[in-house]
């Protein structure tokens, strides 16, 4: 890469940041054109990223990693941190994903938020998010990454609670914020350990000397990084916030809580590859967490009637796949990123489709009150259908290439691991097929579980047997265009990137070249098994939700389904394990604070006040007294000298 293009890297962060600053500072005056400024900033960032990428592709593979240092940030003794931008295939992959999907979602939001009086503020936050996310992936040190990490957390908090006049939304924003802080502590502690062990927190220092470090330390760092990743990427046990985060506007769910921010954890782990390779135990824990979350999300997804929450559960599950791959070592890194990219496209497309459906259905999210929408929303149905086939992993859609690679990689290894991880990955694919098909069929197929006014109905919520009155219509082109582009990506991106293992080789300067190992089962068998399970899941969903009528209220169900409907009791678990002891602890601390600390402090303040009042009394205004005190003070000092140094003046 040439220096000129490398020096463009800061502008990737600066452009959307300037956009956000302008929108926030200019204020209401920019209400009329502010959203277009937001779109422009995002698109311009994409163009800058494209220029850098093209230049990178023109260079030799070993010339593709560069660091552009802007300034020295912190320079105190042993800790030296620069503000630098790491430009390499991994970060550029993220840059392209963030800016392309981000720009499309900006465009979509222009129409989606057109009736919101705070649309400008929304775009300011979106731009802020893009800037922070790009800083996260372009940072050349963990500390600078942390700035972006907190920045996306802030933007996410602001956007989840964007409609904060509804209390539940504000609560959801807070929940996401608090759970993310738990993860952040992991990152902070990891940085402390790095500083203590390697004497620095920049990637080149840490990753370069990770191999030589003590395995206990690297394991600790790896687990702390995993904790951070769990918080950001909604993995067990910090998964509970993602479902509630759906309270934010749907474009936010598409961009932040599906395509980009929630994948930051995967980025962190892949970026920290050399540390993890020096910590096999941490790798195993990562794979286990990924596998568990994969199943957890899939099971929850089967029972959700809220279209956005079903998609959120699916996101959790798909990120579980990526974490599993990241836990498999160098062989899995490229596949994790590959799946991350294709997932970014089809999941963003699915969310935008869900937004389009909600737009048509008066912001209803309950799929039990949808049905038969395919004919009325053809573009939405087709684009979502393509995304659906992609996430199912049906060849030749993009999900097939990426997910299949992960399942194959999960079957590689020795001992019990390939069998357990492989089986989980296989099962997950089957369950995914079931719940995603359920979502698709409940929304677009079957009978209509709503009425138009013409068909007879007493009021908005008053159709016979509780079916609501709706007037579905296809969304405007500003919304459908991004959906179409993302659908094209869902169809072709996997094949395009997989051809000749192009993408895996592209990432090799960062992830390293992984020797190819054969899975414990033959590849053709794995593919056959996968596709069979997918077909079975799809067929089951078709029978249940497309052929039979769907009840508009959830039917009574066995215990496991009821548990899945409430997210497998995740909130109860959190409350019992964390919140309750925490409350007891804080109450007792408050008690101690009141009785001991406050009392002491107030006593001190009172003492200061009394002493001050006494001193004020000395300040009588009589000049003769002032002079006397000056002289007396001199005497006192002489006395003090005499007392404290024994002889002195005598």
């Amino acid at each position, binding site marked *: 890469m040439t220096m000129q293009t490398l020096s463009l890297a800061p502008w990737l962060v600066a452009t959307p940041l300037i956009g956000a600053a302008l929108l926030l500072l200019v204020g209401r005056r920019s209400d009329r054109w502010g959203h277009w400024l937001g779109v422009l900033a995002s698109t311009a960032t994409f163009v800058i990223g494209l220029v850098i990428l093209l230049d990178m592709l023109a260079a030799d593979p070993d010339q593709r990693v560069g660091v552009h240092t802007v300034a020295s940030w912190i320079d105190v003794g042993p800790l030296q941190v620069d503000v630098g931008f790491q430009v390499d295939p991994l970060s550029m992959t993220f840059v392209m994903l963030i800016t392309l999907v981000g720009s499309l979602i900006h465009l979509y939001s222009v129409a989606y938020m057109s009736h919101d009086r705070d649309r400008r503020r929304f775009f300011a936050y979106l731009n802020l998010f893009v800037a922070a996310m790009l800083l996260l992936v372009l940072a050349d040190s963990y500390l600078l990454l942390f700035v972006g990490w907190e920045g996306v957390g802030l933007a996410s908090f602001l956007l989840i609670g964007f409609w904060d006049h509804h209390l539940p939304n504000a609560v959801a924003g807070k929940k996401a914020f608090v759970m993310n802080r738990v993860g952040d502590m992991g990152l902070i502690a990891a940085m402390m350990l790095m500083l203590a062990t390697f004497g620095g927190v920049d990637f080149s220092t840490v990753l370069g000397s990770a191999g030589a470090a003590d395995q206990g330390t690297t394991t600790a760092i790896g687990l702390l990084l995993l904790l951070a990743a769990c918080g950001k990427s909604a993995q067990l046990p910090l998964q509970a916030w993602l479902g509630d985060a759906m309270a934010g506007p749907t474009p936010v769910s598409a961009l932040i809580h599906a395509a980009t921010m929630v994948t930051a954890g995967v980025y962190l782990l892949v970026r920290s590859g050399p540390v993890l390779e020096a910590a096999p135990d941490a790798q195993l824990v990562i794979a286990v967490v990924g596998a568990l979350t994969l199943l957890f999300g899939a099971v929850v997804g089967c029972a959700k009637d809220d279209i956005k929450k079903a998609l959120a559960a699916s996101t959790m599950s798909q990120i579980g796949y990526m974490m599993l791959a990241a836990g498999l070592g160098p062989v899995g890194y490229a596949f994790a990123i590959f799946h991350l990219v294709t997932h970014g496209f089809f999941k963003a497309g699915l969310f935008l489709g869900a937004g389009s459906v909600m737009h048509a259905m008066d912001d209803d999210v309950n799929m039990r009150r949808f049905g038969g929408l395919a004919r009325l929303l053809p573009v939405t149905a087709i684009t979502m259908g393509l995304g659906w086939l992609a996430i199912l992993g049906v060849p030749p859609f993009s999900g097939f290439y990426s997910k299949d690679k992960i399942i194959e990689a999960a079957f590689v290894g020795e001992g019990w691991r390939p069998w357990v991880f492989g089986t989980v990955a296989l099962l997950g694919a089957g369950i995914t097929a079931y719940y995603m098909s359920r979502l698709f069929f409940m929304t677009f197929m079957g009978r209509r579980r709503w009425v138009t006014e013409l068909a007879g109905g007493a009021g908005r919520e008053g159709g016979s047997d509780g079916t609501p009155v709706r007037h579905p219509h296809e969304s405007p082109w500003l919304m459908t265009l991004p959906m179409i582009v993302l659908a094209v990506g869902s169809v072709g991106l996997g094949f395009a990137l997989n051809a000749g293992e192009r993408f895996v080789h592209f990432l090799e300067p960062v992830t390293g070249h992984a020797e190819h190992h054969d899975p414990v089962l033959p590849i053709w068998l794995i593919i056959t098994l996968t596709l069979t399970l997918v077909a079975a899941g799809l067929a089951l969903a078709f029978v249940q939700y497309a052929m039979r009528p769907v009840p508009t209220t959830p039917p009574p169900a066995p215990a496991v389904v009821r548990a899945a409907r409430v997210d497998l009791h995740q909130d109860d678990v959190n409350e019992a394990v964390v919140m309750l002891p925490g409350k007891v602890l804080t109450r007792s601390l408050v008690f101690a604070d009141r009785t001991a600390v406050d009392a002491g402090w107030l006593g001190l303040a009172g003492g*200061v006040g009394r002493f*001050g009042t006494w001193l004020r009394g000395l*300040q009588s205004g*009589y000049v003769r*007294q*002032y002079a006397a005190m000056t002289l007396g003070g*001199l005497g006192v000092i002489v006395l003090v000298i005499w007392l404290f140094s024994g002889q002195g003046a*005598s």
Partner: protein
Amino acid sequence: MEFEAPVIDWAVLSPVLVVLAAGVVGVLIEAFVPDRVRRAVQVVLTLAALVGSVVAVALLWDRVATDGFAFVVNGTFLLTPFTLGIQAVVAVLAILGVLVIADRTRTGDDAFAPTAAAVPGTTYEDAAREAGLQQTEIYPLVLFATGGMLLFPATDNLIVLFIALEVLSLPLYVLCATARRRRLLSQEAAFKYFLLGSFASAIMLFGIALVYGFAGTVSLETALFRMAQPGGPILELMPALVIAGVLLITVGLLFKIGAAPFHMWTPDVYQGAPTPITGFMAACVKAAAVGALVRVVFTLSLGLDEELRRNLEVGLWAVAILTMLVGTVAGAVQTDVKRLLAYSSIAHAGFLTVAFVGFSETGAQAVLFYVLAYGLATLGAFAVVTLVREQDADGVVLGEATHLSHWAGLARRAPWLAAAFSLFLLSMAGIPLTAGFIAKFGVFSAAVVAGAWPLAVVGVLASAVAVFFYVRLIVLMVLTPPAEDAEGAQDAEVATEGQDAPDLAADGAGSSAAAGRTLAPARTLRRAPVVVLSSRGFATVAIVICAVGVVLLGVVPQLALDWAGQAASFRPVQP
């Protein structure tokens, strides 16, 4: 004996000379320049002279830094890097001070009486006010005072030191008496300052006499040379004389700095003096006096033996602890913003004294940075005070609204002004990312290096208490809704009842209202809401420069620290 004319290196004198010469020209301007343009000419001349002084310092910098010193006539005038550093700080702060002094706000009045010689409340005074007279002698007076301050740390000769002290003090006594409003309070302040200042001068002069008594010279370097004779008779035979002489000089200088127990004049004088003058005094006099103290006492301490030096250190410990304690504790119960800032300045004198212990170049460096950081914040804060005024029912702007209750909710009325004031207060409190933090860090670490860590601990504790009263003011401005002046009215009542108090400047709540009585009846005060005046540019420029300086020194202090490090050498020695 034939008189031999001394060879005088005028360039070395230039930082002081340009200011004093401009002062003389200023007096001539008073006599010969017509009334209309007199003020403009004076302001331009004053600023030009002070800028010229800064330029002179800058031009001399390399020469003095390389040679280690430069002198005229056997050290009667002596420049060391530290002296130049103090001169730079004083001159820069004086420029900012003059900007505030020159501001007339939108009322068209400056802070000074039309004719300060008029007896308050007489028809002559009213006539002078109606005629629109203005007292432009203020500017030459400021120049003379500044000249004295520049000379104060720039000599090896104790007699010249005393002359410099008087040159800087006498114009200040006059300036203190010139307030346009609350004139009795102003004159009272000036008289108190004069009496107590003379008293302190006498103490210092006594110290100088004792030094001459044991050393037989008024030259510091010569005295040092004679004291340092190994086994020499001075320290053996007259230890009491030595420590008494050094101590008395120290006390005289500590008085000017405002360290306890020699601080009693500070609140009254700071409150009574015209606010721009208070800011000028608080920033520049302290810098100059600290410079002189470092020059004289640090130098003399080098000649003391271990025991005597320990005695001096114990004395400074006592002063430092007492000053920090008095400044912060008494500051916490003040209700008048000028008095509050006065106690804050006392507390800062205490923090500065912490750095004196050890008598090292580390201390000198810390002190130099401290006076710059403190001076910027203090000048800025007093500049803000000049703009917050009372207003009577007819909308006529009165004097400064110094009672704390007037400042409630100020952030809503003037957000930028309140933000700047908060910044200055935070810097004085020593909050990180402001100049005050770096400055405090510097003095405390200098104390730790000198082995006086208990002093540093006391300093940190005192800073914590001080944060309370600074933040209380910020909370008052930002969070408290403005009251309908109920408190101010009450104070006026209290003062009227308590008329048996002999001095107007009795401490506390009554004083501001009592002082207000001299100008306007208490009844008008009761209705007085607060108005924030827009400055006519000068004060705004000063506030902005101070604010930027406070932030820059706090965020990127390295440049200034390096500069202070270069200027740490306070003795005329080859580097």
